[in-house]
């Protein structure tokens, strides 16, 4: 039952090169400031940095002490040289400016260096200038934009991409995406076949192409290693991202939050008094077999595994001394390691089970399935209302509301009002802004908005229909956008017809990642396009997705690409992807003999999406 690759699966390119590149560049930058220095790291960059360069490497290059950038906290460093490793954010600039200006007042002179990752923005330099410290600091860029979290998963670790682009309409990160793709194509050859859907997808694709063309004259293009690339905007499919995850990796993410490829298992999992940080990737032999499995299978698998392990341990009975020596020196270590991992995952499973029973998980899943399939709407609505009234969880409630809105093309006005009122009563008035955000992103809307359009909205929707205003940002156009989920679902057959029980042990299709109730829309789109090698015949779907202008194909003659490479597909998720989607596509790859590589701005899940949209009191 465990998830194995097909024997004919194509080899993945070696992405560890990206890590080495990033490490070398960082070292180079650190060496630019010779001598002992203290390094201030932004919290968001700590985990990615950890995956690139260990503390000992940093120390080798004369980093003395490491500090976390903490706004409003006094800086204790006494070093003469301070180095800041930050994302290009204005608040970081203010932090640095404050620090430098404090030093200046105290008559202290130190050397300051700011390293922006993955790139610096003009706005940041401007803030430094406005604060009067531009001349006091030196700025550099650490073009570290792709972190290989796993053999087939590259993450840009930019969770803010989602809010910045899909809510604020800020396109600053698109260039970063294009640069990252450019790096990939220089290292692994260009991508002969390109497909994509979504405004951001199209912009990223075009920017990337421009970068390629600018350099075409100078560099000889390599033989492509990856045959296809598929760009997908997150707002093409919010539904999948909003569903509760039930494959193991997704569930671990929903429950414990996987951060940068590793998870902190608390004492309840480790069954000791300490927390343990565990890397979750293909190198964990136990995990790699269960990560893509439906949760209901995992327990059985693990106990089977435990029995096998016991059997292997038991073999040492009846061994002679020589055999025993062999066993101890060669096998024991591996077995012990496996044993340790096994007990960790069993612990995690128990903990998940406990939490889920407490939260009436079954009820929740039932409601979600109801929403996906479009039956017993009233029950679902009152379930959500009760959920809010009981203050079960602000994020969960919000998620269910959004799910209801998207699947139904918006809430009916009565529900829209009452649910929002209930929510405000439960969680406070600042969420008025949360709702405003959600509406702007098209996540929580009102049905038939025609008569209730505000002045601004009608102005904007006029612009949207006007072709000349094609450059209008997504944030606004989504106002006039309908999700059309039900129609798309019918068109693409997203709800599998069930005759009898769906056997989760032997999945038939990608729906298994949602207990057989729903095929993830994003993955289905990819499957359909790859099958046709174009959008042909999908016009209706594209129209329903409001993306007639933003679905593109660019297929080149396949003289250069090997057949091996043509079975490798790079999927670029703009705005994040979930582990369920990864599992579904890995399944699809195994069925069709492809292999997928994922590039995402960040790994996300429903909670992260909702948090990105929420207004919180500072």
């Amino acid at each position, binding site marked *: 039952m465990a998830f194995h690759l097909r024997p004919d699966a194509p080899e993945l390119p070696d992405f560890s090169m990206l890590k080495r590149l990033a490490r070398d560049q960082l070292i180079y930058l650190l060496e630019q400031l010779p001598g002992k220095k203290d390094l201030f790291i932004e919290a968001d960059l700590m985990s990615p940095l950890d995956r690139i360069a260990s503390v000992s490497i940093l120390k080798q290059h004369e980093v003395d002490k490491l500090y976390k950038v903490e706004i409003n906290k006094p800086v204790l460093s006494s070093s003469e040289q301070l180095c800041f490793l930050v994302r290009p954010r*204005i*608040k970081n600039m203010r932090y640095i400016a404050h620090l430098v200006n404090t030093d200046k007042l105290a008559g202290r002179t130190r050397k300051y260096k700011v390293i922006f990752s993955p790139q610096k*923005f*003009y*706005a940041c330099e*401007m*803030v430094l200038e*406005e604060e009067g410290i531009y001349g006091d600091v030196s700025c550099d860029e650490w073009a570290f934009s792709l972190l290989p979290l796993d053999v087939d998963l590259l993450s840009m670790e930019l969770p803010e991409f989602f809010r*910045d682009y899909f809510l*604020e*309409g*800020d*396109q*600053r990160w*698109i*260039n970063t995406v*294009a640069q990252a793709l450019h790096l990939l194509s220089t290292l692994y050859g260009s991508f002969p076949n390109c497909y994509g859907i979504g405004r951001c997808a199209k*912009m990223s694709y*075009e*920017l990337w192409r*421009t970068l390629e*063309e*600018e350099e*075409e*004259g*100078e560099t000889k293009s390599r033989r492509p290693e990856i045959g296809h690339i598929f760009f997908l905007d997150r707002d093409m499919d919010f539904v999948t991202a909003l569903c509760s995850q039930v494959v193991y990796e997704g569930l671990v993410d929903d429950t414990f939050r996987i951060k940068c490829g590793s998870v902190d298992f608390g004492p309840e999992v480790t069954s000791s008094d300490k927390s343990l940080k565990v890397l979750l990737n293909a190198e964990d032999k136990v995990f790699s077999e269960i990560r893509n499995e439906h949760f209901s299978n995992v327990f059985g698998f693990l106990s089977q595994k435990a029995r096998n392990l016991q059997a292997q341990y038991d073999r040492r009975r009846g061994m002679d001394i020589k055999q025993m020596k062999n066993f101890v020196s060669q096998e024991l270590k591996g077995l012990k390691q496996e044993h340790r991992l096994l007990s960790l995952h069993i612990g995690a499973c128990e903990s998940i089970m406990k939490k889920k029973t407490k939260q009436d998980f079954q009820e929740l899943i039932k409601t979600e399935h109801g929403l996906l399939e479009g039956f017993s709407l009233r029950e679902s609505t009152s379930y959500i*209302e*009760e959920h809010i*009234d*009981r*203050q079960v969880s602000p994020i969960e409630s919000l998620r269910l509301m959004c799910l209801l809105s998207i699947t139904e093309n918006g809430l009916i006005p009565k529900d829209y*009002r009452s649910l*929002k*009122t*209930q929510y*405000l*009563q*439960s*969680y*406070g*008035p*600042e969420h*008025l*802004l949360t709702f*405003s955000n959600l509406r702007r992103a098209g996540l929580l809307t009102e049905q038939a908005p025609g008569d*209730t359009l*505000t*002045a*601004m909205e009608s102005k904007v929707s006029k*612009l949207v229909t006007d072709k000349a*205003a094609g*450059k*209008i*940002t997504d*944030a*606004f156009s989504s106002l006039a956008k309908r999700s059309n989920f039900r129609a798309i679902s019918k068109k693409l057959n997203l709800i599998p017809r069930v005759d009898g029980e769906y056997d989760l042990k032997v999945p038939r299709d990608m729906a298994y990642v949602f207990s057989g109730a729903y095929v993830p829309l994003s993955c289905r789109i990819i499957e359909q396009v790859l099958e046709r090698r174009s959008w042909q015949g999908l016009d209706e779907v594209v129209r329903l997705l409001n993306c007639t202008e933003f679905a593109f194909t660019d297929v080149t003659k396949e003289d250069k690409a090997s057949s091996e490479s043509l079975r490798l597909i790079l999927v670029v998720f703009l705005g994040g992807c979930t582990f369920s989607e990864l599992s579904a596509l890995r399944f699809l790859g195994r069925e069709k003999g492809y292999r997928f590589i994922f590039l995402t701005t960040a790994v996300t899940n429903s909670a992260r999406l909702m948090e990105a949209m929420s*207004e919180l*009191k*500072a």
Partner: protein
Amino acid sequence: MDCYTANWNPLGDSAFYRKYELYSMDWDLKEELRDCLVAAAPYGGPIALLRHPWRKEKAASVRPVLEIYSAAGVSLASLLWKSGPVVSLGWSAEEELLCVQEDGAVLVFGLHGDFRRHFSMGNEVLQNRVLDARIFHTEFGSGVAILTGAHRFTLSANVGDLKLRRLPEVPGLQSAPSCWTALCQDRAAHILLAVGPDLYLVDQAACSAVTPPGLTPGVSSFLQMAVSFTYRHLALFTDTGHIWMGTASLKEKLCEFNCNIRAPPKQMVWCSRPRSKERAVVVAWEKRLMVVGDAPESIQFVLDEDSYLVPELDGVRIFSRSTHEFLHEVPVASEEIFKIASMAPGALLLEGQKEYEESQKADEYLREIQELGQLTQAVQQCIEAAGHEHRPDMQKSLLRAASFGKCFLDRFPPDSFVRMCQDLRVLNAVRDYHIGIPLTYSQYKQLTIQVLLDRLVLRRLYPLAIQICEYLRLPEVQGVSRILAHWACYKVQQKDVSDEDVARAINQKLGDTPGVSYSDIAARAYGCGRTELAIKLLEYEPRSGEQVPLLLKMKRSKLALSKAIESGDTDLVFTVLLHLKNELNRGDFFMTLRNQPMALSLYRQFCKHQELETLKDLYNQDDNHQELGSFHVRASYAAEERIEGRVAALQTAADAFYKAKNEFAAKATEDQMRLLRLQRRLEDELGGQFLDLSLHDTVTTLILGGHNKRAEQLARDFRIPDKRLWWLKLTALAALEDWEELEKFSKSKKSPIGYLPFVDICMKQHNKYEAKKYASRVGPEQKVKALLLVGDVAQAADVAIEHRNEAELSLVLSHCTGATDGATADKIQRARAQALKK
């Protein structure tokens, strides 16, 4: 081939010198060269003449003429000299003409007589005038050294990066030195000068007397000195008629020659080449030319005309009114092949090839070479010698011989042959009379093809340059594109052609050749004051990012903004935005933003963090009341501290929401105002923390604090729905473990949420006793669940059987664990079986 060596002159035992004609000069000089200031650039460079130098004719009425010719005497430029008296002319390494004036100003002209710039050699010169000047070449570029009327030297080692160095005084120097020269040693420039019988070396720090070793005594004056092309050797001509040759460091003597002529020579230059066998000096008098080396005899030529010597890397160019000749030491390969009765393999091969066309004797020659195993060497020799021949027919016969020999070799790498053919084609092309760059093979290799192309571009010989690039298959970026770009930059300077025509012509030629930057060309056009043309050219620039900086410079900010947006580079957009912000007044700035949503959202993001007030103004300007409302809501808890301020902010927000026709938000905001005031009152009256709690939490807090009346009042005031209130009270009372109150509450009326939650919450608080009370009141649909919750599996089974509900039966069954429930499980199984029977 006997006659071929007719013009070879032996110097000593080992070396031959030959002199051959490069061009017969095209110019029609009216004056003698000796009446002009002359400067000729090395590497076959151009010749500049300034007629009517001031020293001769004092008549100020006649303006002198500056003329520039190619090495073949083709006129490149001719202009009237309008500036002050000139002391010296010289060419820089970039083929710019430097004219040193008496007042210390140096005027720089291009190859075509176009004035480039000027600089001064220092203020001190203004009074003392410049007596003499030298232009010299160093590894940093081209330098200028001057001798002032005060007998002081000033020099700059690189005119491109002008740093004047005034050298220390030479002690006892009362009159001008008899001769002097600039020397470059150890990356620094020095001056070597001769005063009477003494030589002085002046550098930055000091002036020291030096003596050439082994100089024949009796010298009372040095008449001429010459430094070799590479600054390695020095030659001195003394008044005793001796020529001393040695190293420039004056540490070593090479030889000394007595020419028995005491008249000062007109010019003396070195004539040697890299790996020279014999280092020689060429000395020119009015009618006589002498080649002198380490040999008892010199080579003598008669000069029919007034001539001028130009030292080169591997020889000397000699030009006069009628001809332009080249004098050099015969290269080794040529010598081996052409020397009379030479048995060198190359010579045999050449001979053999010639015979091959006529008789079988070719075989003998070939056999002879092969027996010695020297065929490879022979081929190499022929190839090399071809490079050193000036006449194409000689080049051809040598190459033919090489190609012939190659046939009999198994593995002769072809590239040296192919490369030589290519190089010779290029060389013959540029040596052509019309082009007039008489480069030798060694000079060409030293110069490199890139520099040669630059020089062709400088002469505006774009088609030839492009042909060469194409012929040599140079990468476009370094070759054709670069030249086209230069051409375009030249084209935009043609003021008599209209903007449209220029733009079209450029685009036709350039198309989208990779590596050509239209923005660079546009920048040049803008530099010439042709803004409109620059904008037209920018239209062809495919990278919008490249268009923006120039557009900003040309103050076309709005166009720049749309281009920046097109580029997708947000940083670029931001750059333009800040430009616009400073350039336009606030209203216009906002209006511009309004039409560019991408820029607007970018600027908003910035304002959100850095300029909140501007953000508000932006919303106001757009009548965006919805966002304005949100802005004030945020302010009500983020910016304002006092309750009055917070309420006021909310009031503003509510007004904005009304304007935005968002009644829901307006009402919600008003409710919040009410709640805030109320919370404040509660805090005053009851103490504790109420502010900033949600309505739900406020009520819960009241109940937990035992203020049931107040709680109910609040629920009524804010119209909290029944269901919520029941959930709320239930949770709160259970948390208080106030079971009595809970029971009272449960009986106050029929529960809108049923009684299962009561059971549930009691069990969560581990009060089975209370839970059971409520279990009995749970409605039939949830009865089974309730019974299971309180752990009464048996009764749950009974109810389920009674309901004949399959789902309920399974649920109960799944709760049957261990031995205790065994009986119940059996009972369910029996009931199931019975149900099936029916």
